[in-house]
Each structure stands twice: as C-alpha cells, then as structure tokens.
C-alpha cells in the first residue's frame, strides 16, 4: 500500500541557528485521511508543515509528498498542495472576489470566472463579492481562506491551526467542510490545540519540542500512554487536591467543577493512594476514562523543554 502514502517523510530535521526546531521527525499519511497534528506552542508543528509544503527547506531528511521528492521538487509540491496559514494571509485591501481571482490566476485556473463564481457560491458570499476581505469576521475570513486554498483542487491540504480564535459554531462548520473534502479524496493534515478537534481526526500525531512522541488513532494514543484515571467527587475536593498532587504515584490532578480528575501510570498504586488520602473526607471515588488531554499533559511534562 506504499503508493497510497501521500506524505511519507523520515528524519526530517530543521535548525534555525543552533536551535533544533524539528528533530528527525517521521510521518506517514495515507490518501483520504484526516490527520491531526498536535503539540504545545513552539513544538515545531508550523515548521514541519512548512517543510512539507515547500516553504522551508529541511536541513536533513528524506521522503516524498504526493510522490514528489521533498528536497528537490519544492516548486512542484507547491503547485499540488493547498496550504492555509495560521494567520489570515490574503489581502485585506482586496475584495473577496479579487482575492479569489488573484489565487485562481496564480494557479492558472481556467476559465477563471467559472472557478471564482463557483467558489463564491459555495461560500455563500456571491452577494458580498465586492466587499473588502479585511472587513470580514474571523469565521468568514477563515472560510474564505479555506475556499481560496482549495480552489485548485489540491490532493493534499495542509492547515496550520485553522480554527484559532473562531467561535464554536464556525469551528463545527469548518470541520464538516474538512470531512466533505476528505470524502472527495483530499488528504488533510491539520495542526490544532483543541482536543475535540483532535478527536475528529482519523489519526493524530503528537510532537513536542521537535520530537514526534506518538502517532495513531485517538484510542491507540490513549491506550499506549498507559495512564489510568480516577474521578473524585464531593464537597471537599479542594481540600485534598494539593495532597493528591504531591503524591509520587499521582501524575496529574485537574478539577472539573466539583469533580477531580486524578491520573497516574499504575492503576493499583493510584487507587490505593487516592483511597488513603480521601478516606477522612466525604468523597466518592470511581473509575474514569483517560482523555487525550491527560495524555498530552503527560507528554508535555515528560518531554524536555529545549526551547528555553
């Protein structure tokens, strides 16, 4: 099934000065997949994506994107992928229509007006086509950007934190759109901070401080972490929170309303520690489900911060 790999890169390394931002990252993405790219700020997500769309040259590494050599065919890769930047980067002082026409001309899409009109129509912006892009709200800007970078029907779509600062409804609609595109055969790599968005991906990749830490489906990543979770409920949760957090067998304690989320690597040790501390208080302890967020927090505290 090698031919179905849209992204297949190994040992991808990028240094800025003497700082290694991406360290020997490998990634494989199959055709039609939506892969979530997760990691803390400054972990190398944007740099990795930029290397894969030909915007940055890797210091070392090898592999193919859409069957094209990552190191030699940067220009061809640019033509074949769609890349949506983190910050809205179309022209505020051009109208919606002019922005689309600009992009269509750069990709030599013909007939130009058919493409532009169709895109305007699918966006529902036909009546506002003469409006300046800068006057659009955040959600609309993001939809415009998505439409613009998919207008040339790229086989691979790279999205860099596309939903940052967008309201939940617009986010939901955006993800519906992504799934429609994937169903049509487009492969999508999307970086995000949001756990609920990670759960809408077929697979996820977790990168921290330049190192790829985990890859797989959400269930696989959670299971491979070996973490167990207990839920502590009751009135007195705030009184035990500190004692719980200091216990060596407990990794994380996070309050969610009146419930404490207690996470540790060893199920038995975790249970006895919690029972012991909570014994003197009016609290109930039950088995909980480890979430992706718990796993990521563990990754982040485990990985050495080399961004200092």
């Amino acid at each position, binding site marked *: 099934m090698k031919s179905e790999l849209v992204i297949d890169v190994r040992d991808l390394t990028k240094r800025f000065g003497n700082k290694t931002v991406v360290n020997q990252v490998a990634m494989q993405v199959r055709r039609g997949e939506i892969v979530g790219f997760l990691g803390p700020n400054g972990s190398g997500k944007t740099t990795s994506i930029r290397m894969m769309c030909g915007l*940055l040259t890797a210091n070392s590494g090898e592999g193919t994107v859409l069957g094209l050599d990552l190191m030699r065919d*940067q*220009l061809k890769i*640019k033509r074949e992928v769609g*890349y949506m930047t983190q910050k809205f980067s*179309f022209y505020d002082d051009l109208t919606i229509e002019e922005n689309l026409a600009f992009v269509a001309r*750069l*990709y030599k899409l013909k007939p130009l007006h058919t493409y532009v009109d169709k895109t305007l129509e699918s966006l529902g912006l036909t009546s506002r086509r003469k409006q300046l892009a800068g006057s659009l709200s955040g959600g609309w800007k993001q939809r415009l950007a998505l439409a613009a970078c998919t207008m040339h029907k790229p086989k691979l779509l790279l999205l860099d934190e596309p939903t940052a600062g967008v309201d939940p409804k617009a986010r939901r609609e955006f993800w519906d759109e992504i799934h429609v595109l994937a169903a049509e055969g487009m492969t999508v790599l999307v970086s995000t901070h949001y756990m609920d968005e990670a759960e809408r991906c077929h697979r996820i990749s977790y990168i921290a401080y330049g190192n790829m830490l985990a890859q797989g489906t959400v269930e696989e990543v959670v299971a491979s972490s070996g973490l167990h979770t207990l839920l502590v409920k009751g009135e007195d949760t705030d009184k035990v929170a500190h004692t719980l957090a200091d216990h060596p067998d407990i990794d994380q304690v996070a309050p969610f309303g009146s419930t404490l989320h207690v996470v540790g690597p060893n199920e038995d040790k975790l249970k006895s520690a919690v029972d012991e501390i909570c014994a003197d208080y009016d609290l109930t302890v039950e088995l909980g489900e480890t979430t992706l967020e718990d796993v990521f927090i563990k990754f982040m505290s485990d990985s050495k911060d080399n961004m200092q």
Partner: protein
Amino acid sequence: MTHFFSISRFYAMFLKEFIQAKRDRITFAMILGLPIIQLILFGYAINNDPHSLPTALVYTSNDPYTRAIVTALEVSDYYEFSHVGVSASEANDLMQKGEVSFIVTIPSDIATRIQRKDKPTLLVAADATDPAASSGAVSALKNLANEALARVNGEERAIALQRAQRLQIIVHRRYNPEGISQYNTVPGLLGVIMQITMVLMTALSLTRERERGTMENLLAMPANSAEIMLGKVTPYLCLGAVQMTIILGAGQLLFDVPFVGSLWLILFSTLIYVFSLVLLGYFFSTIAKSQMQAMQLMVLSLLPSILLSGFMFPFRGMPHWAQYIGECLPITHFIRIIRGVMLKGADLSQVGNELAILFVFVFVFSLMALSRSKRTLD
C-alpha cells in the same frame, strides 16, 4: 499623587524606547552614517564655483599668440581642455552630448589682427543649460587671455591691461541665452521626483507583504521570484508615465521650458529610467526587514542622487571621486539624456551611450533583486 508626572513611569517609557531604538540596527546605522555622508558630500564634493570644467578648444592656426592663449587657459583651473584641436562640428557634437561645457574658438586671423593692432576676438560658447556652471568660468576668461597675450609680447603689465580693452571676447550662451535656471532644474527635477516616488513605492512592496503576513501565503503559491518581481514593479511604470506628463506639462506651461528634441526619445528614456528605479526599490525591499528600514534605504539612495547627479550642482565641477559615485547612479545618466534631448535637441546617436548605461542598471538591479529574493521562508 499618581496623576502627576511620575519619574519612574517616565523612566520606564524612556528605557523601552531606548532599547527598541538600539535593537533596530539599520536605523542606528543611519543615525550615525547620514550626518557623515552629508558632511562629506556637502563639504568636499559640492562646489558652486566649479573648476576644471571640460572644454573643447577649436583653433586652426599655430601662431605664437594662439599657443600662448592655449597655454594660459590650460594652466588656469577653471578649464580643463579635454578636447584640444577639434573641428567646430566635432565640438558642437561634444557639447550636445554634454561632454564639454565650453567651446573656446580662437579665430585663425588672431595673429594678424593683433599685429595690425585691430581688436582681436575670442569666441566662447558656453553650455548655459546650467547657468551656475558657466558664469564663473566665463568671467575669468578675459583676464586669462589678456595675461597670456601680455606675456607673449613681453610687455609690462600696465600695457597689457591697456590691451585688455582691445581683446574682445564674444560669449555665446547656448541653449539658454538668458540663463534661466528653471530650464536646467525642471528636467532634472523630473529625475529626482521619480527617484523619490518610484523607489519608495517599490521599496515598500515586499516589506508590506512581510509585515501584513501575506508573504507566507504568497510564497506557498506557485509564483516564482521573477514573476513576483516583475508583477510588482510594472504597475509603477504606468504611474511614472503619469508623473512625467505632469512634470513636463507643468514645465512647459509654468516655466516655458523649451522642448527641442524628440518626444519619443524622452518617453523611451524615461521608461527605462523608471524601470531601473522600480527595480532598485524592489532590491531594497528584499533587504529591508520592515517598512521603516525600506524608507531609510530610500533616503540613503536619494541623498547622493540629488547632490552628486548634476541635478543641484555642476557634475563636472565635483572632484573625481564624487564623479565616480555619480556615474553609479541612474539619475546622473537620465539627467544627461533629458537635458540633452529637451534643451539641446540631442538625438539617439548622441545619448545612446547614456541610454545603454540605463539598460545596464535595469539588468544589474534585477539580478541583485533576484539573487536576494527567496522562494522559501528560510
């Protein structure tokens, strides 16, 4: 008391500005560099009473009087006889090209006239397109020639002065007989105004993309460096055409600046000139990290363009090192072309060299810009 002036808040602000100013290296360099450049240019290069102006000497006879006058003129520092013994038509051609500022003609009958105690005459044609350049040299001429004649005859100085009354110098101020300085300024101004606007506009073009964050997107799309560069600079060629129409139109209407030569030659030269400017500006935008830095580079290039191009001060009157710098500026060559064509009616064969140099600038600036443009964000 917090509403009154607080020293610590003032200090916080002061410190922040100071640190920011220190971090902006180019600005810092400009603050230190500009005064030094200005001092050197104004102090050494610029001369309102220019000396060593290139002159063509036309003479046919080889009598002692002629030789004496030639030697006397040569040792004076007002003239530098770059072309000696040329024919009258060659001399005219040289002046039209702007290679000489004066033509001194010694008539062949000067010896006979002096011996006959007739009034001897000396013809001087001055390129009066730049009145400032010619006036000092013209007024010095009479004394020089008289002293020369005096020495030939071995007479006393008193007698020489007597003779001075008799030596007639006929000065012919060509192209601008009334010495109207606008004739010289307006065509030059066209060059300067275009230098300011064209370089500024294009110097901002890439830095604006960078500051607005649109650069990343532009680079992610399949446009190559040459497409981006040419696409960004050519709109300004049209703008340049509009500017030229305004300036030349105003020059005619308001100042009656003569328009002797070919309009098409002017249009074509201006087009090439503007093209070289927009590419220079684009090159700046590939270096500058911010719009502020781009503006400073523009100012840095503007200063020598005004002072060393022959726009404000006579080019030939500057020391050689300043002339060399001047030769490296497109505006110097444009000013020669436009003054030559507009005021003296020079044709393509006479300004062809200068036009070729403008083409070289276009070529060099585009190579410089392209070598600095990146297709990636590395």
